[in-house]
């Protein structure tokens, strides 16, 4: 009589985690930075497929790993936010609730499904000057297993988080201008890039949430705008 196949839960989870990490480690990195005017998101991305997107008035999304999976997550985030804003009010759509919902959904997939999501995401929320208790920015990171963490000043996801974080730990400055923040984001990603490469405006995707704008704060910077900012450094 043959023994039925048995694998311990620890083993199954460890295997899934290793599988997901392998998928993510092949990817490039994204950094979210707080600067004087709001929150900046800089991604190493030479393609026209966006890794950074708008969710709602003050909320942006960034994802690394498998494109089809994080883009799907971006879309369900937009659906979540728009439905909530329609059912209640625009001010009721908050980054923390969205990050929590992501954490639940991603964790659920990790436990239940055969294949975990090979992604890591950032939910960034820019502060609102109108209300005393909402002035601070928020940066949340959600991992492939649903693990959620919140960050101050900067937040990094992608293939080489350790090097980029080390660089930022010793070089990050608060209160930078937009152009200075873009240059800092580029240098941080340079430090984590495989060949210590020199990223340019054509290999970067740069989006920002400008807290002084009315309504929707999200803007995508054009290649030309990024070039000007990098050149003046």
């Amino acid at each position, binding site marked *: 009589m043959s023994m039925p196949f048995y694998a311990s839960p620890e083993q199954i989870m460890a295997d899934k985690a290793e599988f997901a990490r392998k998928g993510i480690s092949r990817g490039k990195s994204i950094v979210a930075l707080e600067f004087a005017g709001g929150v900046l998101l800089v991604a190493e991305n030479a393609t026209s497929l966006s890794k950074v997107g708008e969710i709602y008035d003050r909320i942006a999304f960034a994802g690394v790993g498998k494109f089809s999976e994080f883009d799907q997550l971006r879309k*369900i985030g937009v*659906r979540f936010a728009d*439905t909530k804003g329609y059912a209640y009010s625009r001010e009721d759509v908050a980054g923390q609730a969205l990050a929590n919902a992501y954490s639940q959904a991603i964790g659920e997939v990790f436990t239940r499904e055969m294949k975990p999501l090979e992604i890591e995401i950032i939910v960034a929320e820019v502060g609102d000057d109108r209300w005393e208790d909402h002035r601070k920015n928020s940066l949340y990171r959600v991992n492939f297993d649903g693990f959620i963490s919140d960050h101050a000043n900067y937040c990094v996801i992608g293939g080489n988080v350790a090097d980029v974080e080390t660089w930022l730990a010793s070089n990050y400055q608060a209160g930078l201008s937009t152009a200075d923040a873009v240059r800092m984001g580029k240098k941080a990603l340079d430090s984590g890039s495989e060949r210590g490469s020199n990223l340019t405006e054509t290999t970067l995707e740069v989006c920002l949430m400008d807290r002084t704008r009315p309504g929707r704060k999200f803007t995508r910077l054009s290649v030309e705008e990024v070039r000007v900012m990098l050149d003046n450094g």
Partner: protein
Amino acid sequence: MLRPCSGGEPVDWRGNYQGSSFFELLQVEQPQLMPNISAMGQGPIDSIPHGTTVLAMRYEGGVLVAGDRLATAGHSVASRDVVKVFATDSHSCMAISGAAGPSIEMAKVLSVELEHYEKIEGQALELDGKANKLSQMIRQNLPAAMQGLAVVPLFAGFDLRRRSGRLWKFDITGGRYEEAEFDATGSGGIYARETIKQGWRSDMDQESAAKLAVDALTAAADEDRATGGIDLERRIFPIVKLCSSAGVEDCLEANIESAYRDTLARRAKGGSSS
């Protein structure tokens, strides 16, 4: 699936709806949030507020949309300062006449719809696409329209590809008709249209378009008891929005007031009503 409100059971984490439309998303995932009042018994409902006169006209470089501020319920005033002209996104506007509740809700859904599509697809709808979407939403409202809750809006915007202002009117079945010059709907629409017809020129600038709009709304309020005139005592002015390549802007109350005072001065000399 991420759900802010309870709904049916999701198939998997992606949710049951995969498209780019917010209106369809509500139908599939959150039907209880749909602005659908079709199954509410028999017979017309006539005691709810109705909006009255709105108009739209093209000018050189854009399109203007304006509306008075009165809502009536039967023979009573329901509200003196209701807003019937809405910016639905950065370059388009919708003006409503008909049952105020469903009309205002439809303007709200349309503006979420346009923003939702833009975020999901990474690209905004063309102006034609926006007008088409609105006509589908009006068609869905047909059962309610048959009970007297008609939504008959005007939709106008600046077409960024054609570089010109465009406007559409609709009927209760969702029929969509593009107008080349101007249009006005609502109970005072016929009077507003007559006034615009006499003064409209294709090469009008923003300022003269705004003046003509004030003239037309004043004429409508003069002839139609359900249309609100400009109320200088209460400082209630019509909403006048201008859609041009720069986006949607509000016409300043000071400009509306001075145009209105010109109209009054002309009227004081007698003759025509405007």
